[in-house]
């Protein structure tokens, strides 16, 4: 105790992930606590991931953790769903009720009738899999049509290359930019991602800025003129949804001008001749007409990218949202492959979880290694979507969301009756949100796990369990490298971590559950590494060993990518498949092709006459992560209202001044946002996404879930034929008008 009677400040080292920062995490932090209060968060300067830096959300963690509106106790619904009628319960009461209702549903309808639902790549994903497997349900899912967030891109890499690749920022080396083996990318192509406002999928967005500072030339493909576009050597403001045509046009230039890496193509790829034939269907004049980008700019970008020794490429979610997103992603795989950028310093490198540790399974194989015998084959075959989509049956590791919603309404081939919803606010965040809400309203029983009262909790929860931020939990993390630990710094109210909640329920659902404590389970996770839990906790992060399979470069030459130890890639042919044997076996086109969006000036010209602008939802703000953080005062102050970006010229045509409230409307509905002048493509309205007003969640009839929510304007049923990609989240049609002051 110090002189003033206060306890000493305790400093706990941990790693960000999910609740607290919202993102996919990886940053090393020091958490300063005293007497159960978080005083401060400090980036760890020598941490190889964030190099000491932190984003405003991490730096507002105190406000988040101790927010006055946090849920602090389990709540049981006493009135009808949708009303603010809750009774505080003890954990025992709440878990007892969950167990009783869910096992009741299981006894009557089978375990498959219960869904386990997550949102984006949060640590809860790993826990939901564990829970689903121990409950006996194959139906673990992401709450997004077409699985259109990273999964089409992930699967494209699995299909074409057998592994996942990421741009090389020397992130797997402790020396980072000082590592002599690393090269600054000569060209950095950023495709559809405002990377300075976000950190995606294991890539810290500002690593791209660090490369620019070191001399990378930037190509930006984005209809939004953003920070990156403003610093780009070449900016291609592509018509939303036409990324597939653009990729094929760039491949056309690179192949026809002989700019590809001939030796790499010869030694490490198959299907080049078929690809060459296919890209002849995409000459630049045609591609320019489709994409609205001048042909000479496309050619210049393709040449700059192909000339880079090396070139890096970072891609964003618009690729998934393009019609047939999976095939668009396959075309981009071909771009980095034929230019020989694979497994090169500063190019694209294979990413694998450090030391083979799975804390968040990213493949069915990883799940089976963890919980393999927990689910009999015939039960696994009931995964929703497996009958309709061969990729769900053979390759992917989750139920297909659009098929799930259909099945809830149809009850065929079997009824869906209950759900366990954690780390997702899909009543706001799913496209066609009212249909998603109706679907889940029809279930007998819903559990929601969250930190705050969300529209999803208000609309659907029968039991609402209070979860914790990352500062309040222990864990290990290997996405990708280094291997890191999360160490609990404090507890808040009665909140429990997702790990604790799912662990306790898994024990209740499965009498043969093997683990007595979470620590035992963490030790099991760490088994492949041969590293002890104490060691990871103490060190905080552990980089891969020199010479290990998790370290680049040229692993395909050294036999480090295939399970059989032979050189090459983990694909059926052992090569990068520019024409995919797996796509062919499933009955799909083995080569990339272009599909026009279902609603567009080209597909539906009459509709476009009525709605002449293109609606692109989902622009990112660094203050938020999807629908989160509007309730955190300092972050809300950075972006107090929902913004719709519009070109000043276009705005003038509609008599809209900078800062006016505007209606954005199309054939599916209308939403209200604040107009913000910016240099987006003049035919575009670019809106922030997943807005709701937390201050009105408990009062408004619709929990304020729809008023400023772009998903209101997006119908269901626009997902890709493969089940992966689509949804037109960024390419529908709309018009705008000023909100009149005294609107009725």
């Amino acid at each position, binding site marked *: 105790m110090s002189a003033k009677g206060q306890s000493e400040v305790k400093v706990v080292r941990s790693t960000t992930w999910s609740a607290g920062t919202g993102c996919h995490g990886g940053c090393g932090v020091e958490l300063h606590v005293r007497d159960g209060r978080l005083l401060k968060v400090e980036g760890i300067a020598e941490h190889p991931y964030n190099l000491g830096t932190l984003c405003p959300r991490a730096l507002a963690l105190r406000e988040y953790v101790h927010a006055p509106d946090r849920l602090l106790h389990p709540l049981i619904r006493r009135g009808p769903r949708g009303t603010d009628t809750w009774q505080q319960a003890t954990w025992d009461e709440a878990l007892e009720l969950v167990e009783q209702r869910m096992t009741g549903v299981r006894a009557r309808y089978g375990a498959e009738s219960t869904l386990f639902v997550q949102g984006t790549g949060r640590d809860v994903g790993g826990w939901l899999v564990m829970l689903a497997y121990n409950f006996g349900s194959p139906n673990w899912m992401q709450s997004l049509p077409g699985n259109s967030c990273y999964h089409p891109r992930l699967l494209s890499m699995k299909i074409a290359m057998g592994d996942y690749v990421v741009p090389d920022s020397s992130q797997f080396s402790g020396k980072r930019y000082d590592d002599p083996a690393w090269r600054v990318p000569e060209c950095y192509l950023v495709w559809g991602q405002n990377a*300075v406002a976000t950190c995606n999928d294991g890539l810290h967005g500002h690593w791209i800025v660090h490369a620019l500072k070191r001399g990378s030339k930037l190509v930006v493909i984005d209809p939004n003129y953003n920070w990156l576009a403003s610093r780009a050597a070449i900016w291609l403001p592509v018509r939303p949804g036409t990324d597939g045509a653009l990729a094929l046009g760039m491949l056309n230039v690179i192949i026809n001008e002989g700019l590809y890496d001939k030796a790499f193509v010869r030694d490490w790829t198959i299907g080049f001749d078929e690809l060459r034939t296919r890209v002849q269907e995409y000459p630049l004049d045609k591609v320019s007409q489709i994409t609205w980008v001048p042909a000479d700019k496309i050619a210049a970008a393709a040449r700059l990218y192909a000339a880079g020794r090396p070139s890096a490429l970072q891609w964003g979610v618009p690729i998934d949202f393009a019609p047939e997103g999976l095939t668009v992603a396959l075309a981009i795989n071909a771009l980095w492959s034929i230019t020989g950028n694979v497994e090169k310093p500063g190019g694209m490198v294979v990413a694998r979880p450090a030391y083979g540790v799975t804390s968040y399974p990213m493949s069915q194989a990883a799940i089976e290694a963890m919980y393999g015998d927990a689910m009999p084959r015939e039960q696994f075959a009931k995964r929703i979507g497996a009958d309709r989509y061969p990729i769900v049956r053979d390759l992917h590791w989750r139920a297909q969301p659009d098929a799930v919603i259909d099945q809830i309404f149809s009850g065929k081939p079997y009824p869906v009756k209950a759900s366990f919803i954690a780390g997702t606010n899909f009543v706001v965040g799913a496209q066609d949100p009212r249909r998603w809400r109706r679907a889940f309203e029809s279930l007998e029983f819903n559990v929601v796990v969250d930190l705050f009262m969300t529209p999803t909790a208000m609309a659907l929860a029968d039991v609402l369990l209070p979860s914790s931020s990352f500062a309040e939990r222990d864990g290990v993390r290997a996405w990708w490298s280094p291997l890191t630990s999360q160490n609990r710094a404090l507890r808040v109210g009665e909140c429990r971590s997702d790990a604790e909640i799912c662990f306790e329920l898994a024990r209740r659902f499965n009498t043969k559950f093997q683990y007595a404590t979470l620590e035992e389970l963490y030790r099991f996770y760490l088994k492949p590494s041969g590293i002890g839990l104490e060691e990871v906790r103490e060190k905080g992060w552990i980089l891969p060993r020199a010479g290990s399979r998790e370290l680049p470069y040229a692993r395909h030459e050294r036999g480090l990518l295939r399970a059989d130890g032979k050189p090459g890639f983990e694909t059926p042919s052992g090569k990068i498949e520019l024409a995919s044997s797996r796509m062919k076996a499933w009955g799909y086109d083995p080569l990339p092709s272009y599909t026009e969006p279902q609603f567009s000036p080209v597909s539906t010209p009459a509709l476009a006459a009525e709605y002449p602008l293109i609606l692109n939802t989902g622009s990112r703000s660094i203050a938020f992560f999807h629908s989160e953080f509007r309730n955190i005062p300092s972050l809300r102050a950075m972006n107090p209202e929902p913004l719709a970006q519009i070109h000043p010229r276009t705005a003038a045509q509609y008599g809209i001044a900078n800062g006016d409230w505007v209606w954005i409307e199309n054939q599916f509905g209308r939403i209200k946002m604040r107009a913000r002048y910016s240099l987006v493509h003049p035919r575009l309205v670019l809106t922030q996404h997943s807005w709701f007003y937390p201050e009105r969640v408990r009062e408004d009839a619709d929990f304020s879930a729809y008023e400023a929510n772009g998903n209101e304007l997006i119908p269901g049923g626009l997902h890709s034929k493969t089940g992966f990609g689509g949804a037109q989240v960024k390419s529908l049609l709309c018009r705008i008008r000023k909100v009149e002051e005294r609107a009725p």
Partner: protein
Amino acid sequence: MSARGLWIDVEFCTGCMACEAACRQEHDLGPTEYGIKVVEQVLNGGQTFNYVPIPTDLCDLCARRVQQEGKRPACVHHCMAMVMEYGPLDALIEHMARRPRSVMWSPKPRPPRRPYEDLPGTTGE
């Protein structure tokens, strides 16, 4: 000891506002108080994405943190683009010569001025 200041390479400042948030946390400021404020150049009503962070009257160059904890100022430490430096002004000026499109600040804290405080009927209570 020569006077110290901040240098910022605004060419690569992304406007991420981590400096604002880091300063707010370090100095326990309220949600709308700033020790440094990121300002964007605006041309013809449109965004330029050229940002300039400006220290306010609250900036004390993190005196306690720098002197007692031996750390860099909170904004410099956390800047996501890693474009801020803290040091003696004569060293920072060399950065300016090397990197055009950069700025230097020589902050000095002073208590908040409340010019209307004494005037009757203006306290807003």
